C-alpha cells in the first residue's frame, strides 16, 4: 500500500481543483452563449451590459476573463487588469466548490461570508454578473418554465398559497384561467381517522378555501392594482411638497428609476439630516403569503439593513389573552394562547358539552385555515354533543352548528363568567381536588366572587342587569357545565375572540381561564378548544411557518431564533435602532406627541410590564414613513387619526409599497407597485404561521407544504416586494447585504433544502407537482393532549420548546409559566407589577365599560356596536378591489350604484328609528360618521348592532380625509371605535366597546 505524503496529497488536490475550475471557466462563455440561444429572455439579459469580467485566484496563478458584447460572450485565459468586474477566489478549493455546476449553496454562502470569494466592481454590473451565474443553475426553471403540471388541454397547473388556503392556479398564455382548492391525488397521503363514540370520523381528502382565497384571481386582475410607479402630482422632492394634499391630490406615472432614486435619496437625506430613528416602517395585516417574499422575511431584512423605527403591533386578535389571560397560566410565546395538541380527538371522544364563547371560527377560518375546521364542527351534531354560543351576535359558527345562543351585552362577558363561578362555589360544582392541588390563590378570588370583600355576592341575579341575560339561564348553564365534561371554545382557534377586544377584555379572557381551571384543565374532555386547532397531524415533520423569519436573518424579532436560523444558514441581521412606535398611538406619535406604552413581549409573561417611550433616547422623531402592506385605517380604532397624521409637515416623505391603490396608499408621495404572490416565487405551508402561533397548521385536516410558483409575469410594471427592496438596497450599496446575491427563487430553494422536505421529495419533483401532503400520524404516534401532563402532575410532554427555560421558577418543564408554577387565580405577576391597578387587579373582576350601558356617552348614543373580524375578507385583503367578493350580499350591499358596507341592527331597533332593510344609513358618534347599507336582523338583540371591521378603503364624502366633521363612505367602521386601550397598562384595542346612533342618510347619491 502506497502512502502519499501530506504534501503530495495537497499538491495533487490543488492541481485537480485548478483543472476543474479551469474546465468550468473554460466552458462558461460557451455555456452562456448556448443558453442565450435557448432563451430569448436570457439573451436579452445578456445584452443588458457590455462589460469585461475577470475571474481569478487571489494569487493570480489562474485567471480567465470574459467580454460581454451585445449579448455575445467570449472568454480568454489570463489576467486583464482593465476588467470592470472582478470575481476573486481565495484558492483552488474554494473556487472549485463554488463554480462546480452541481454545488452546494451552503458552501457558496460560507465562502462569501468568510471572504473566500470577493466580487469587485460597480454595484449594477457586479450584481448583474453574479446573478447571471446564479441563473445558470436555475435555467430550466426560470427560462424554460420547466415547472408545474401540464394539463391535457394545454393549460398549466401551478400552486400558490394564500391566507385563505392553498390554490391550484390554472394558467394559459400567461393568463390565470381559474383558481381552485386542491383535490389530493392517489399518490398523496391518506387522511386520519378519529374513532369517537362508536363512529369513525375522517375528513375528505382535499383542501378547502375561504371565500377570499376563491376570489383571488380577480384580486390579481383588479382594476385597482398599482401597476406603475406613481408620484403625487403636487409633490416636488426638491421644492414644495404640499403635505396638506396627501390623500387629496392625484398621481402621475413616473419611471421605476425615478421612483427608486427619489426613495433612496430621501432615505439617505432623512437619516443624514436627522439621525437614527428618522425613518419609520410599518407592515400591514396579511395581504400575501409566503416564507420568503413576505413581511417577516424580505421586509424585515430590508428594514434591518436600513435601520428604522418600527411600528409595534398590538396583538389585535389576542388582546384579552395577551394582556390578561396569560397571567393566570402563561403561554407568552403564543401571546397568551393555549396548547392545542390532541384537543380535537379529546373533544370528540370525551367532552359532553361545548361552550363557544366569543368564538366564530366559521367566519375567520380559524386563522388562515380555509374551511378546514367546518367538518369537525359538523361532527358535533353527528355525535350529539350539546353546545351553547355566547356572543352578542349570532355569528356564523352559531348559525351553522346551531344549539343555544346566549347574547350578553358587549364587554359584560366577565360578569356572566363570574356569576357562573359563583354558582359553582355556592353549589360545590367544581373539581375541588384539582383546585386544591393544581391551582394557586383560589381563596382570594372566591372572596371576591362570593362578595366577602365588597359585600356583593356575584350571583346570576347580580349579573342580570349588567349582561341582560336572565339569571335562570346563567344558573342553568352553570349547573350543566359544572356537571359535564366541557370544552371551552374561545375565539377562532383558541385564545382569540372579540370579547377580548373590548373595554377590560382582559377580564373576559381571565374569567375563561379561571372557569376552566375550576373544572380541571387538561383532564379528559376538559380543555380549551373550538375543534379548530389540534388535529392529529405529524408535528415532528419540520417545515417552518412564515413568522419563523424566512431569510430575514433576524433571530431576535421573528421565530427564526427558535426555528429556522440554525437550519438555514444566513447572514445575521438586526435592526440597530431600538426606537418603536405603538400602532395604536401612531398618529399621536407622528403628530408630535410623546407617547408611553407597554410592549407585549413573547419571551416572558412579565416582559409586558416594560414601559417604552417615543421618542426613544438618542433617536430622532420619525420624518419619513415607509408603508408596506395593508392599511391600518380599516383595522385600527378611531381611524380618522390615521388619515390626519399624513396631512401635515411632520412627515417629510411618505412612500407606500402596495399591491392595490386603496387605504393608506392614497396618502403616499411615491407609490411603488408591488405584485401579488401569484406573480413571483415563494414557498410555504397551508395555514402555517409559526412564530407567535406555533404549529398553526394543526388547524388543518392535512399538512400541505407547497412551492409558490410564479404563475404569471408581474402585471404592468409591478415587481415583487423582494425585488423592490433589492433595487433600493442596490442604490445604497446594500445589494449583497440584503439578499446575499440570491433571488427569491434561490431563497425558496434554500429554504426547501433547510427543511425536512428535502428528505421526502426532490426539488425537481416538488416544483413540478407543487405540493406535498405530510402523512398524518398513526394513532400510536399522535401527540399527547394539551395540558394532560399538567392535570396529571407530570413533566410537560407536549411538542413545543416554549416556555423558555428561565420561565420555569422550579424544575424545567415541570410546571406552568407562572411564578407558582400552577394555574393562578391570584396572578402573582400582576400583584408584583401593580397590586392596586383598579383596571387589572391580581384577581379577575368585572369592570364596567367606559363606553357601555350607563356610561357617559350612553346619554347620547344608545346602540352598542361590535365590529369583529370579517367573514368575507381577511382584514382588508379581499374587500373592495372591484372583485366579485363585493357581490356577496352579506359582505356589501349594492344601493344606487355604490357598494355599501353592511351594518346590522335588530328589526325593532330599526323600526323605532324609521329604518328598513336596504336603507342607506349614517352610523355616527362623536368620533365620526360612516355610511352603510342597513341589514335588519334577528341575529343581534335589541340595543346591539354589528358591522365587521377592516374595510379596505377610506374615502370621505367631503374629500377631506382626516377632517373633523367628515362622512366616510366606504364603510370604514373603525372611524367610530374608541382609541382607548383595553386597560391602561396594555397596548390593546377596545373596539367592541363602542356606542353609536343611526339615522337614515338624506345626503343623496354618493360614490
Amino acid at each position, binding site marked *: 500500500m502506497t502512502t502519499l505524503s501530506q504534501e503530495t496529497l495537497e499538491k495533487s488536490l490543488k492541481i485537480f481543483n485548478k483543472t476543474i475550475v479551469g474546465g468550468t471557466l473554460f466552458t462558461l462563455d460557451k455555456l452562456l452563449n448556448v443558453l442565450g440561444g435557448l432563451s430569448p429572455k436570457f439573451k436579452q439579459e445578456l445584452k443588458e451590459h457590455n462589460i469585461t469580467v475577470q475571474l481569478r485566484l487571489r494569487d493570480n496563478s489562474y485567471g480567465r476573463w470574459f467580454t460581454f458584447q451585445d449579448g455575445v460572450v467570449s472568454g480568454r485565459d489570463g489576467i486583464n487588469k482593465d476588467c470592470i468586474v472582478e470575481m476573486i477566489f481565495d484558492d483552488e478549493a474554494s473556487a472549485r466548490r463554488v463554480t462546480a455546476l452541481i454545488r452546494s449553496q451552503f458552501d457558496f454562502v460560507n465562502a462569501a461570508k468568510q471572504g473566500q470569494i470577493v466580487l469587485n466592481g460597480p454595484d449594477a454590473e457586479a450584481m448583474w454578473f453574479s446573478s447571471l451565474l446564479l441563473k445558470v443553475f436555475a435555467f430550466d426553471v426560470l427560462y424554460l418554465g420547466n415547472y408545474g403540471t401540464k394539463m391535457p388541454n394545454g393549460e398549466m397547473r401551478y400552486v400558490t398559497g394564500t391566507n385563505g388556503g392553498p390554490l391550484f392556479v390554472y394558467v394559459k398564455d400567461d393568463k390565470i384561467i381559474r383558481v*381552485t382548492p386542491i*383535490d389530493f391525488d392517489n399518490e398523496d397521503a391518506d387522511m386520519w381517522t378519529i374513532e369517537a363514540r362508536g363512529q369513525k370520523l375522517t375528513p375528505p381528502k382535499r383542501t378547502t378555501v375561504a371565500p377570499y382565497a376563491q376570489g383571488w384571481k380577480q384580486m390579481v*386582475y383588479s382594476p385597482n392594482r398599482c401597476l406603475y410607479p406613481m408620484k403625487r402630482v403636487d409633490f416636488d422632492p426638491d421644492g414644495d411638497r404640499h403635505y396638506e394634499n396627501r390623500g387629496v391630490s392625484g398621481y402621475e406615472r413616473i419611471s421605476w428609476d425615478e421612483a427608486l432614486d427619489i426613495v433612496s435619496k430621501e432615505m439617505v437625506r432623512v437619516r443624514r439630516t436627522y439621525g437614527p430613528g428618522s425613518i419609520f416602517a410599518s407592515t400591514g395585516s396579511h395581504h400575501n403569503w409566503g416564507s420568503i417574499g413576505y413581511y417577516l422575511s424580505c421586509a424585515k431584512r430590508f428594514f434591518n439593513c436600513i435601520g428604522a423605527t418600527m411600528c409595534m403591533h398590538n396583538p389585535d386578535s389576542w388582546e384579552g389573552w395577551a394582556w390578561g389571560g396569560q397571567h393566570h397560566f402563561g403561554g407568552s410565546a403564543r401571546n397568551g394562547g393555549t396548547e392545542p395538541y390532541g384537543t380535537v380527538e379529546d373533544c370528540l371522544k370525551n367532552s359532553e358539552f361545548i361552550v363557544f364563547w366569543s368564538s366564530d371560527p366559521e367566519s375567520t377560518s380559524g386563522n388562515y385555515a380555509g374551511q378546514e375546521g367546518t367538518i369537525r364542527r359538523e361532527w358535533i351534531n353527528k355525535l350529539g354533543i350539546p353546545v351553547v354560543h355566547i356572543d352578542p351576535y349570532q355569528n356564523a359558527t352559531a348559525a351553522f352548528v346551531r344549539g343555544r345562543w346566549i347574547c350578553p351585552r358587549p364587554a359584560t362577558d366577565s360578569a356572566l363568567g363570574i356569576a357562573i363561578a359563583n354558582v359553582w362555589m355556592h353549589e360545590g360544582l367544581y373539581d375541588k381536588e384539582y383546585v386544591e392541588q393544581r391551582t394557586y390563590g383560589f381563596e382570594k378570588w372566591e372572596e371576591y366572587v362570593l362578595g366577602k370583600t365588597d359585600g356583593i355576592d356575584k350571583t346570576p341575579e347580580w349579573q342580570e*342587569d349588567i349582561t341582560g341575560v336572565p339569571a*335562570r339561564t346563567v344558573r342553568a348553564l352553570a349547573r350543566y357545565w359544572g356537571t359535564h365534561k366541557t370544552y371551552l371554545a374561545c375565539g377562532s382557534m383558541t385564545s382569540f375572540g372579540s370579547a377580548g377586544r373590548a373595554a377590560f377584555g382582559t377580564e373576559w379572557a381571565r374569567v375563561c381561564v379561571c372557569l376552566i381551571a375550576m373544572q380541571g384543565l387538561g383532564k379528559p374532555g376538559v380543555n380549551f378548544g373550538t375543534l379548530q386547532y389540534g388535529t392529529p397531524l405529524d408535528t415532528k415533520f419540520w417545515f417552518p411557518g412564515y413568522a419563523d423569519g424566512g431569510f430575514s436573518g433576524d433571530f431576535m424579532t421573528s421565530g427564526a431564533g427558535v426555528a429556522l436560523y440554525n437550519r438555514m444558514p444566513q447572514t445575521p441581521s438586526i435592526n440597530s435602532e431600538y426606537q418603536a412606535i405603538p400602532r395604536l398611538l401612531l398618529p399621536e406619535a407622528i403628530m408630535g406627541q410623546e407617547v408611553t406604552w407597554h410592549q407585549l413581549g413573547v419571551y416572558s409573561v412579565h416582559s409586558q410590564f416594560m414601559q417604552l417611550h417615543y421618542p426613544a433616547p438618542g433617536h430622532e422623531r420619525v420624518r419619513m414613513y415607509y408603508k408596506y402592506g395593508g392599511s391600518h385605517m380599516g383595522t385600527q380604532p378611531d381611524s380618522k387619526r390615521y388619515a390626519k397624521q399624513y396631512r401635515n409637515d411632520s412627515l417629510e416623505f411618505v412612500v407606500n409599497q402596495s399591491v392595490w391603490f386603496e387605504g393608506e396608499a392614497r396618502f403616499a408621495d411615491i407609490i411603488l407597485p408591488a405584485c401579488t404572490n401569484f406573480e413571483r416565487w415563494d414557498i410555504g405551508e397551508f395555514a402555517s404561521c409559526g412564530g407567535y402561533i406555533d404549529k398553526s397548521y394543526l388547524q388543518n385536516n392535512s399538512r400541505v407544504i407547497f412551492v409558490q410558483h410564479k404563475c404569471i409575469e408581474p402585471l404592468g410594471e409591478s415587481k415583487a416586494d423582494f425585488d423592490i427592496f433589492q433595487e433600493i438596497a442596490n442604490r445604497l450599496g446594500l445589494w449583497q447585504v440584503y439578499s446575499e446575491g440570491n433571488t427569491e427563487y434561490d431563497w425558496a430553494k434554500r429554504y426547501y433544502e433547510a427543511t425536512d422536505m428535502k428528505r421526502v421529495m426532490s426539488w425537481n419533483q416538488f416544483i413540478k407537482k407543487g405540493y406535498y401532503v405530510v402523512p398524518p400520524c398513526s394513532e400510536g404516534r399522535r401527540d399527547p393532549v394539551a395540558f394532560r401532563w399538567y392535570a396529571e402532575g407530570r413533566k410537560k410532554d407536549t411538542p413545543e420548546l416554549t416556555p423558555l427555560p428561565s420561565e420555569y421558577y422550579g424544575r424545567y418543564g415541570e410546571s406552568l409559566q407562572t411564578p407558582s408554577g400552577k394555574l393562578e387565580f391570584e396572578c402573582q405577576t400582576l400583584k408584583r407589577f401593580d397590586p392596586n391597578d383598579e383596571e387589572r387587579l391580581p384577581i379577575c373582576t368585572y369592570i364596567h365599560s367606559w363606553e357601555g350601558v350607563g*356610561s357617559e356617552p350612553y346619554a347620547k348614543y344608545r346602540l352598542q356596536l361590535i365590529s369583529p373580524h370579517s367573514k368575507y375578507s381577511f382584514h382588508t385583503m379581499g374587500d373592495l378591489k372591484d372583485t366579485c367578493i*363585493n357581490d*356577496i350580499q*352579506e359582505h356589501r350591499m349594492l344601493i344606487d350604484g355604490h357598494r355599501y358596507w353592511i351594518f346590522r341592527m335588530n328589526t325593532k331597533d330599526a323600526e323605532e328609528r324609521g329604518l328598513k332593510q336596504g336603507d342607506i344609513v349614517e352610523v355616527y358618534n362623536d368620533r365620526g360618521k360612516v355610511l352603510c347599507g342597513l341589514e335588519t336582523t334577528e*341575529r343581534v338583540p335589541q340595543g346591539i348592532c354589528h358591522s365587521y371591521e377592516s374595510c379596505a378603503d377610506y374615502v370621505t364624502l367631503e374629500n377631506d380625509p382626516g377632517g373633523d366633521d367628515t362622512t366616510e363612505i366606504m364603510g370604514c367602521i373603525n372611524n367610530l371605535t374608541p382609541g382607548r386601550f383595553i386597560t391602561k397598562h396594555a397596548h390593546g384595542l377596545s373596539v367592541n366597546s363602542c356606542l353609536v346612533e343611526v339615522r337614515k342618510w338624506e345626503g343623496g347619491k354618493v360614490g
Partner: protein
Amino acid sequence: MKKFHMIIDLEKCVGCFNCMLACKDEHVGNKWLPYTEEQQKHEDKWICPTMTERGEAPYTEVTYVTRLCQHCDNAPCAKKYPDVFVKRSDGVMLIDYRKAKNKDLVDACPYGMVSWNEELGCAQKCTGCSHLIDDGWKEPRCVQTCPLRALQTVYCEDNEWDKIVEKQGLKPITDGSNKPRVMYKNLYFYNKCFVKGALCFDQDGIEEAAIDAKVELLVGGICVAQTQSDFLGEFYIDRIPKNSGKMQIRATYGEFEPIIADFEIKTKSVVLDALKFGGGSGKPAVILPNEHANEQALTHMIPKDAEAARKAFADKK
C-alpha cells in the same frame, strides 16, 4: 345514460359563497364556446346563496338557500323558447348563446335564474360547467369548492336518482311540476316554521329554568309532536307547515299545573319567551337596559368614568 342531478343540503351550507365566487372565477374573463360566453363580472349570478332568518333573537335560526338553474326536464323556458334553451342528453339545460339576444328570455325562468349580460347583450345561465365535465372534470366548480359538499352533483341514471330522492327525502324548491334536476335536502329550514320558547318556575323567590319538561305540540287538542326542554329550559319544535293556523304548546313539569300556550302559525316562526309554571311569565331571554341597569353599571365602573357618566346623565336631564 348517466345524467346530471344536484342535491343542495341546507344543513351543510355555511354561507361562504364559495359557489358563487367559483362560478365567477370560471366564467368571468373566460369564454367557453360553444357552451357559453363570458359571465358579467358583477351581479348576474348564475348561482347564489341567500340568507334567510326565522324566529327572533335569541331564538333565531339562520339558513342559506342556494339557487341556480334547476335544469328542469319540463322546463318553462324551453317550452317557450325551444330553439334557445337546448337540453343536452345528460340532462343539462344550455342556452344557445348565438340565439340568446332577446332580453325577454330572462323572464322565461320561474326561478329567476336566467340573467341578462348587459355588456354582451345576451341571456345567460348555469351550464353545469359542461365544458369541464366534457373535459373529464368530476364536478362543476361550485361543487368542487363547497367545503362540506352542501352542493353535490350526482351523475346517474334517472331511475337511480328517483331512489335517491325518495331515500334522502329530497324536495324541489317549488312544487316540482317543472321536474327540476336540482333537489333540496332539509328544506324545512327555509320553508317551514318552528316554535321555540323557554320554560321556568319560581322556587324560593328565584326564577329557575324548567329542565327536561315534557313539551307537546297540540293541533286541535291532539299531540302531533313531542320534545323535552333542554339544559337551559328551552324547547324547539320545527317543520311546522306555514299557515297551519291555531295550535298549542302543552308543557308538563313535575307537580305543576301543565302550561297550555296558544299561538298561531301563519308565515313566521313563533317564540314563546318565557312560559312560567305556576302562572305569569318568566324573564325574557334578552333583558333590555333600564335605569336599574345604569345604576348597576356605575357601581362597577372605574371611579373617574363613573363620575363622568353621572355628570352626562345629569346634564341630559
